[in-house]
């Protein structure tokens, strides 16, 4: 080829990005099969599909993080080869990953400096970070260490990092899972503004109403193939869901509980200083979860959620009387001892906490389900662990390469189904779940929510901590709000609404809790 004069970047009529017949095979699955897709300049384009449909893989192909086996990529009308993310960034492609890739021991601004490469001055960069984060409604302290950030805050770092590079195409893989409703509004404004300036956006989300509001085109994927294209503004959430999962979306059923209502998990004036300087102090938290009910805790991550969960699970023991499990004071006991007494727990971080990334699903079953006969006389029973994992995979419809698949090879939603399944199969008396459906597709979310409801109606006390109000209103019998390390009283679902909860989330409780009024 002879070198030609370079055409202007935004040549009219030239698509920004064109994928032609992309295929990618992993050992166990065909993740992308003959996928074609066109994105115009300034277009906000949604990619829809169940967990494991191949969306993230396709995005990684565009970003150069995964090499396609077949197919071509056209960028502004020219065929390009994108061997690695650096090349993608050089072309003007930015991506916010579903799993974050930040260095825990560095500060926010240091992390961003590293990814920008080249020469930089930390002080001016910190100012820029601050500016961009404020402009886009993504509040961030550039000097904080990443290890002290919540999942939601880490995602903000990733988004800001991309925006600093002035991309022509921005890929967002489930960006809003952990943002507050207001922040989602702000982000949408930003994205619309970026689009009006000609930046194209590829947007993956499981929240169909968001997609209907934001996107003008949608490509639907199922099992690695493109199964349809739609204008989401012309569709209903139900019709989009149908395209995604190939059938009607099930509805959650919350039957009445007719068993005896006993207190199972009692939190009694729990207070705790944070472990590090940026944690949240828990102040005088009180809550009781009874058999047969689902209690929800609403609120935005970073308001004491992580600290409360660690205190309840036993990962950071507290004073003996602060936590009661089935009538026994267990506040001082560690996680294992609480599990021995009937507690199950699904944490927010699936990889590295709820599961060991480098271990197989069978080995990960052993992590907490060793109480289910997977160990005898101190020796592992491998066949039993495989069998347990296999049952979990089947019962909870985990899409993976079998019980020997490594935990880190599963997509987020499927790993979540496995962890929830593993915990439920231990027939707990109390089940605590953090962000049950974060990153889980609509079909699987409905299934998980119904599973938690059914679990509670079998006499288990279920505590759900979630940022998604809709989810809490769908499954919870009572809802409390955690804001600034204080917990509002749990109110029956029928006696509250989204506005009241939203108000409480900003820290203004309708009335002070009796305990605190007393102390004052």
């Amino acid at each position, binding site marked *: 080829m002879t070198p030609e004069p*370079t055409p202007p*970047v935004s040549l009219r009529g030239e698509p920004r990005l064109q994928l032609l017949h992309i295929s990618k095979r992993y050992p166990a699955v065909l993740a992308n099969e003959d996928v074609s897709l066109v994105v115009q300049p300034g277009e906000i384009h949604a990619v829809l599909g169940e967990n494991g449909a191949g969306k993230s893989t396709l995005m990684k192909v565009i970003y150069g*993080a*995964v090499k396609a086996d077949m197919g071509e990529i056209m*960028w*502004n009308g020219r065929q*390009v*080869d*994108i*061997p*690695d993310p*650096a*090349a993608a960034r*050089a*072309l*003007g492609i930015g991506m916010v990953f579903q799993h974050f890739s930040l260095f825990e021991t560095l500060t926010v601004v240091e992390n961003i400096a590293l990814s920008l490469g080249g020469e930089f001055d930390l002080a001016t960069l910190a100012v820029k970070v601050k500016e961009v984060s404020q402009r886009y409604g993504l509040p961030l302290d550039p000097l904080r260490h990443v290890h002290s950030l919540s999942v939601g805050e880490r995602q903000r770092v990733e988004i800001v990092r991309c925006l600093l590079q002035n991309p022509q195409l921005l890929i967002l893989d489930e960006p809003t899972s952990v943002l507050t409703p207001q922040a989602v509004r702000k982000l949408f404004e930003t994205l619309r503004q970026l689009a009006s300036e000609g930046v194209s956006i590829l947007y993956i989300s499981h929240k169909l109403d968001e997609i209907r509001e934001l996107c003008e085109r949608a490509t639907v994927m199922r099992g690695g193939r493109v199964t349809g294209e739609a204008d989401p503004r012309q569709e209903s959430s139900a019709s989009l869901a149908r395209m995604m999962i190939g059938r009607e979306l099930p509805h959650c059923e919350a039957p009445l509980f007719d068993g005896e209502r006993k207190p199972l998990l009692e939190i009694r004036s729990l207070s705790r200083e944070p472990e590090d300087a940026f944690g949240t102090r828990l102040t005088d938290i009180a809550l009781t979860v009874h058999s047969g009910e689902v209690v929800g805790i609403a609120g935005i991550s970073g308001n004491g959620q992580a600290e409360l969960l660690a205190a309840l*699970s*036993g*990962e950071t023991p507290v004073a003996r009387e602060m936590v009661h499990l089935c009538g026994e004071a267990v506040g001082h006991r*560690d*996680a*294992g*001892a*609480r*599990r021995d007494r009937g507690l199950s*727990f699904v*944490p927010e*971080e699936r990889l*590295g*906490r*709820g*599961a*060991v*990334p*480098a*271990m197989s699903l069978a*080995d990960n079953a*052993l*992590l*907490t389900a*060793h109480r289910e006969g997977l*160990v005898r006389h*101190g*020796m*592992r029973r491998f066949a039993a662990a495989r069998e347990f994992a296999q049952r979990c995979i089947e019962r909870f419809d985990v899409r993976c390469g079998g019980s020997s698949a*490594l935990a*880190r*090879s599963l997509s987020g939603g499927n790993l979540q189904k496995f962890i929830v399944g593993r915990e439920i199969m231990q027939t707990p008396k109390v089940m605590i779940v953090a962000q049950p459906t974060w990153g889980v597709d609509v079909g699987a979310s409905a299934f998980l929510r119904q599973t938690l409801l059914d679990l509670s109606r079998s006499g288990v006390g279920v505590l759900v901590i979630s940022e998604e109000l809709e989810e809490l209103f769908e499954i919870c019998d009572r809802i409390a709000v955690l804001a600034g390390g204080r917990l509002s009283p749990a109110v029956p679902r029928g006696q509250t609404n989204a506005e009241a909860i939203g108000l409480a989330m900003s820290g203004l409780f309708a009335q002070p809790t009796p305990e605190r009024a007393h102390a004052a």
Partner: protein
Amino acid sequence: MLLEPRATPSRWMSYAAPVLAILLTLSVGALLFLALGIDPHEAFHVFFIKPLADANGWSELLLKAAPLILIAQGLAIGFRARIFNIGAEGQLIMGAIFGGGVAIAFPESQSAWLLPAMVLAGALGGALWGAIPALLKTRFNAEETLTTLMLAYVANFILSWLVSDPWRDPAGMNFPQSVMFGDAALFSMLFDGLRLNTSVFITAAAVLLFWLFVSKSFLSYQVTVGGLAPQAARYAGFPASRTVWLSLVLSGLTAGLAGIGEVAGPVGQLNLNISPGYGYAAIIVAWIGRLHPVGIVFSGLLMALIYLGGEAAQMALQTPAAITGIFQGMLLFFLLACDVFIDFRLRKPLEKRRAAALAKKRATA
């Protein structure tokens, strides 16, 4: 940098790395011999072939490999949990002192129970010397890398005080050494005229037990989780302090056993040359053996061969004694370097990067 992370760690590379490391060590070793004016061909023959030419060579090989393998088995448990005991040498010496102390306390004993008592005392001494860093770590969060190493020096000083004062052999012409142990205090020889003794069975049994422990026990699984994902271990409620105690006490115990194997074996008394650095060399053995009980057997044999080869080369080629240490050090160095390629790979060839740079230029033009 020329490296980029792999999407998934390469399993192939984790087995290829030790082989690659050995090849690199040999190549650099050849250059080294050339620089010393020695024909590498002859040097390698002296180093690696001649020591194994007769029965005595094999006996010496096993005699040296046994303590290395034994100690490395214990160390590997801790390394899996990221508990780095680098003071096994001190635990070995403590084992020798405790076990040897029993022999010195009953100099006339002919009892069949004397040797078992020494073995027990040796294990206890080593375990105790491992327990101190465990206590310091769980109570005061003191780094075990520092405490184990410092305690190794302490053990050495205790030994030299003992053999130069209270336990010195009165008939020993003022040499810092104890009396020679009686027959009842020594492992018996396996073959006439060879130094190989029954203590190898301790190592053999240990390999079997450690293999069982690592591949089958739930406790070993918990330790491994603690090393791979500390948060997951905390989430599951596997106590971190138990892992610390287990790793350090167990590796101290095996080192103590190795110590008694030396003093009740080829050395036959307490003196200042109980071990030619087995406790340190075993660290390399554990890594090269991929922390795997069977892998450690092979790497232990290799390391023992380097010891023998180094001695043979000293005699036949007048090379300096340091050559043994150089080979051991190179082996570890190259292994760690090759290990990088388990998780990383070289960047794509230059051509593709040029293409990317070109694309960038065009896009900004």
